[in-house]
């Protein structure tokens, strides 16, 4: 089991020692993950590194949705 801090709150992922970012977002039931920005232990991750970045026990993860739009 992994114990994480996700958006400031404690979260536990059962049955795994490490997961990559897409798997974590799935575990956390994050909707529209393609529009999420992820910070791992204080560093913002490039989307191209989501697959290869592993989240491990004790890590701190923050995620936010893209915030944007347009007047036209």
């Amino acid at each position: 089991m992994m114990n994480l801090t996700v958006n400031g709150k404690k979260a536990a992922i059962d049955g795994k020692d490490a997961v990559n970012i897409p798997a974590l977002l799935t575990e956390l039931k994050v909707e529209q993950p393609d529009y999420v920005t992820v910070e791992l232990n204080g560093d913002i991750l490039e989307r191209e590194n989501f697959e290869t970045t592993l989240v491990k026990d004790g890590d701190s993860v923050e995620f936010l949705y893209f915030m944007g739009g347009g007047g036209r």
Partner: protein
Amino acid sequence: MLKIPKAVHDDIISHAKEGFPIEVCGILGGRDGVVSAIYRMTNTDQSNEHFTMEPREQFSVVKELRTGGLEMLAIYHSHPETPARPSEEDIRLALTPNVSYLIVSLAEPGRPVLNSFRIAAGRVEPEAIGVI
């Protein structure tokens, strides 16, 4: 209803005017539907038609709100030349749940208009603003 102190209301409009003709954007924090903090954010697009908030600023603001026991209540942006209603792009990109989406329009010279909406799954509901 989203309750906004007059100082914050006026600051949103000032921000839009100062940024004109570029779209400006920001975050409002507070608790129980009452705004108590405004964060002017950087529009990395620097466009008069689009905005994208700077991610590092977003994370910083969210953490600061959390530390202060506040929550993100609203995301605002300006429409320098179009009405204060969500564009198709605004609706499509209204991804953050459980927040109000405020739009300030400067389309009518000398008469800025600030409107609030709740947007979820492509549905737009106007929301009253109470200036307190």
